[in-house]
Each structure stands twice: as C-alpha cells, then as structure tokens.
C-alpha cells in the first residue's frame, strides 16, 4: 500500500443535509488522504450520492464542516469544488446531451489557441483519452444523446481526467460498463492512487471494492455505519453493515442456492 499522509486532503465532519421533509444525511464523517482509495458503500437511498454532491458543491450542506488539507472551506457551487481540485463523476453523468463528445469532455476547460477554441487539438486529445478506456464510439463528433449507456459513462469518466484534480470522486462509475471497460476503470483507479491522488469510489459491487479500495466507509440511512480496512474485513461483514442485519435477502438467496445445489 502506498504511503498515506497525516492530514487528510478532504475531511467531512458531522455533515447534515435535508431535502424538504426528508433528513438525508445526519452527522456524516469521512476522511480521504492523498494516495488513498476510499470505497463508499451503502444501501440504495442511503445518501451516498447526496454526500458526494455536497462535496462537489451541487447541494451546499446544511450543517457540519468540510476541511480541505486541514482548513475549513465553504463549497457552495460546483465551481468552488473544482477550484479546490475535486473532479466528480456523477451517478447521473450530467452530460450536455446536445453537445458532441469532444465538447462535453472539455466543457469548462476548453483548449484554446490565441483565445479561440482549438478544435483540432481537443479532438485529438479526446480520441487518446477514450482509447485509453477501451471504448469504441461511432464518432467523437456525435452528440452524446446518441451514445449507449456505457459509452456515456466512459465519456463522463474521461471528463474527470481532463484538468488536474487532487481528489477524484467516482459515483458508481462501472454501473453501465462492460467487463473489459470495468477492468480498465479499475486499472485507472489504481493509476490515480499511484499518482498520489485521493479517490472516493462508490460501488455496489463488492468484488470491485475489494479489488481496489484501501478502506470501506459504510453509510446506512444517512448515518455512518462503520469504516473498515479492506484487507482485514470479510465480504459478509461489510454486507451486514450495509443491510443492518445478518439475515437478509442476500444470505437467504445464498443459502437457498446452496441447498438447491446439494
């Protein structure tokens, strides 16, 4: 495992967030160090995406503190987070459907030459970026609305790599990806760690989590429900923390299939 620094790059302390009549996050804590991959897991609706969005500035927090490299910061809009060095791949991707792949990749960080957009350079870079992620796309000049689910997801991931982030947040990045592309993304996560970036990875796939994460933070109904080092925790322990019970649909299903195969 890579060296982990003392002050975390990003720390959340007691974060609360409410939407209308729903208290989504209640006093959540989280720390991410440079060169560390933190997996954030939890049941559907646990509040993972909401937590990520508060970090990314999409929804400002109601209460609590966000610290960046040890100092308290206010993140009120996505621009703030980007300036700090947070790159985010959202679960809903947040691409501009009417723009083509190149324009989406560089949105907000266009390559310019003498103040004018340098389309040629951007198109070239786009092709390089996408081929690193093993994806085939009919043409990089096609509007993203015409792409398949996986292709869109890859575009969103590639977007996060343009620029110089210190922390990369990936909200279920491999949900729509094929086996090969998933492998490439896991490789990518490992490369990001090697480059000493902090990574927050949200995933429902325990195999992926165990493959790349250093520690696993579990969220349950908007509360922290334990932080586990990956190396020393079993699959079952994590799932029990997620569902809040050892008897759940997963274990029941397992035992049923075990019986059936007997």
């Amino acid at each position, binding site marked *: 495992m890579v060296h982990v620094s003392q002050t975390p790059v990003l720390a959340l302390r007691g974060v609360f967030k409410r939407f209308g009549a729903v208290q989504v996050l209640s006093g959540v804590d989280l720390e991410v160090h440079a060169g560390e991959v933190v997996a954030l897991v939890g049941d559907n609706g646990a509040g993972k995406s909401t937590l990520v969005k508060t970090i990314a500035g999409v929804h400002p927090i109601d209460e609590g503190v966000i610290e960046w490299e040890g100092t308290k910061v206010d993140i009120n809009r996505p621009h703030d987070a980007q300036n700090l060095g947070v790159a985010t791949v959202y679960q809903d991707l947040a691409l501009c459907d009417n*723009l083509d792949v190149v324009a989406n990749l560089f949105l907000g960080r266009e390559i310019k030459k003498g103040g004018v957009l340098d389309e*040629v350079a951007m198109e070239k870079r786009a092709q390089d970026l996408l081929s690193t992620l093993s994806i085939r796309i009919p043409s990089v000049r096609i509007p993203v609305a015409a792409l398949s689910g996986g292709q869109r997801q890859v575009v969103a991931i590639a977007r996060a790599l343009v620029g*110089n982030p210190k922390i990369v947040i990936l909200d279920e990045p491999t949900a729509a990806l094929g086996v090969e592309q998933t492998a490439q993304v896991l490789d990518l996560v490992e490369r990001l760690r090697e480059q000493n970036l902090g990574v927050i990875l949200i995933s429902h796939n325990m195999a992926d989590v165990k493959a790349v994460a250093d520690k696993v933070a579990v969220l349950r109904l908007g509360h922290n429900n334990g932080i586990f080092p990956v190396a020393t925790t079993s699959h079952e322990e994590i799932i029990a923390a997620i569902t809040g019970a050892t008897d759940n649909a997963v274990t029941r299903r397992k035992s049923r299939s075990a019986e059936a195969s007997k």
Partner: protein
Amino acid sequence: MSNTNEASATVPAQAAEAPAAAAGAVKVVDPRLLVREQGFKGYWTEFKRKVRSGEIGSLPVVVGLIIIGIVFQLETGNFLTSYNLDQITLYAAGPGIMAVGIVFVLLLGEIDLAVGSVAGLAGAMWAVVGTDIPDSLAIIVGILSGTVIGAFHGIVFAKIGVPAFVVTLAGFLGWAGLQTWVMGDKSTITTPLGSFVRDLTSYYFADVAAAYGLAVFVIVAFYLAQLRDSRRRKAAELPHRPQSEIILRTALLAVLCLLAAYAFNQEQGLPLSLVIFLAILVITDFVLRRTTYGRQIFAVGGGIEAARRAGINVSWIRISVFMISGTLGAVGGLFLASATGGADRSLGGGNQLMMCIAAAVIGGTSLFGGRGKVWSALLGILVIQSIVQGLNQMNLSSNAIQYMITGGVLLIAVIIDSVSRKTQKTAGRA
C-alpha cells in the same frame, strides 16, 4: 482566465503517463460508421442519404426562399428585380439584427418577448436625447439603454428566478409604456438631416468596386479558412474535408456573392445596412462557434444542471445573453427608425416581435435550446421580408387576405423544415 484554462487543459497527467493502458487501447472510431466513398459519386450517395435521414441543415429554407421568389415573379412579373433585392435587404436589416439577439436567447432555451419594445424605447431615447446632445452620443445612449434593459431582464431571470417569459412579458408592456412616456407629447421625431441613423438605411457605397470587393473578400476568406482547417486536421490525422469539396463549396458561395454584388451595383451600390448586418452576423457566429463563451451558451441551453456542474457560471451566461439581446434589439430599433424616417410612439410595436421570433425559428433555431445558428436570423428574415414585399406588390384587395397569406406561407415554410427534421428524428438524431 483564458491562460489558466489553457495551462490546465494541456496536462493530461494521468492518462498520458500511463503506457500500460495504451496497450489495451482500441481505435476510438466505431467500425460500423458508414464512410463516404471517394469521388463525386460518393457525394451524391451521401447527399441522398442525408436528405433521406433529414440532415440537410438549411436546405429546406433556401429551397423555400427560391420557391417564394419564383412564385412572386410569376404573379407580379417584376419581383426578381435588383430594386426589390435592395429594398428587401434594407427593411430586413432592422428585424434581422433583432432576430440575431433572439437566436442567442433561444439557444438558452428561453424567449425574449421584450425585444420589440426595447427597439422602440431605444429609438425614442436616441431621438429625444438627440435633440440636446451630439448625434453620436445619442446613438450610444440609445444602444446602451437596450443593454441596461437586457441586463435587468437577465438579472431578474437568473438571480431571482422569474421565468424569462414573464420578465420579458412585463418588459413588453413596461418598455412600450416608457417609450410613449419618453416621447412625451410628440408622436414622432423625424430623424435630423445629418444624423448617422439616417445613413443606416440610406447610405450606399456607390462605387462599383465596393460590392465586388466585398464579395471577393468573403469568397477568398472562406476558401482560406476552410483550407487551413482541412490542412490542420489532416496533419493531426483527423477526418478532414477533401480539397474537391472545399472548392465546390467555395464555388457555390462565389456564385451567390457575385450575383448579389452585381444586383446591388445595378441599383445604388452596396448598402451600408447590409454591411453592418453581415458584420454582426459574422461576429456573433464567431463568438458562438469559436469561443469558450459561445460553447457555454450551448451547454446551458442543452442542460442547466449539467452546465452548472461543469463549473459554468450559469447566471452570468444568462445575464450576458439577455444583455446581448437587449443591445441588438436597440441597434435594430435604430435601423427601424432609420427605415421609417424617425422615432415614433408605435416603433417596434405591432407584429414586429412576432416576426423577429418567427425569423429565428424559420431559419432553424430550436425553441428548446441548444440548437441553432445566427445565420438562421438572416435566412428567416429574408423569407419573411420577401413575403411582405411580394404581397404588397400583388396589391391585394384586402389586408385580411394579406394576413392570412402571411400566416399560411410562414406555416408552410416551417412545415417543410419540420418534415425534414422529422425524418431526422426517426433516424435517431433528435
């Protein structure tokens, strides 16, 4: 700001420094993409495919324009004259410039209903303050009043969150009221003799060389730009336009430009109004397609949330676009005043607003944001102004019929356009 962006964007740290990944790389372009065959046969098959699947851009409107020309020529016997071309250009400039502003707003997926009233108010401001201060200052006051109003619309919309439709609806009423108030007890203020506003639609570059010169300049500039782009793309190993296609396009443009230049020279020469209108089109087109700012306008029009998450300052884009639309509305107002001989209480009122919006939409700019170009303002206003001129010439017994025909022709123009786009939609390119 542009510098920092450039710097950060050119460092693809993670991806580029990872040779391991490159090993598994695939060619990004999909093998299933159908490519055009070489040679002219290739153009033809591709053209047929594009027509079938509706990717033909402004072709329907251009065809519509040609049909309108032919029909009126057959009806009146003297529609396709250089005089008419000159007149249509002259009256098209004002509404056309206003329509450019509307294109900007439509690209955001919003609408500006106040543009006619702003034009009227700007005309009134210019005329009223012009009685006391020098003409050039008065013109600036007139135009700036449009900018300020646009900023006001933008701020109320972007910062307070009132729908743009409502803000500009209020403006539509309010500014027309202010216009009457500014005019005070005068119902008309005639343009003073020496005023530049008078020249806007009455000055001509009478020298034959002017029109031809401009035409040649446009053609050469177009050719060189296309050539340069194609060369750069070729050098970067990206798909590029073949030399033959560039020459074909340039030739088409050349015929059009030179014909127009010839026609203008038959009359009084190159009209100043056309030069200004074209300049505005070229500049705004450049801004929209070649700058970060233009890209951001499209992004906001395509999806506010996605744009916001990309770090774009959505409020500023909105406010600035309404400022542009206000400013261009004011400039258009001065053209209207010029064309009718002065500012009056009803300047910019009536159907003016609807005509400007119709021009933008007929030209192919989507009402739902994120799709369109400023040239649609030119095409659209030419269609509309041709219809108006033609119907006037046909000397119909009643205006009622004239209205009905205008409505009908507009509808047909857009139906043609929509049908072609419909094919496009079923072909999956909505």
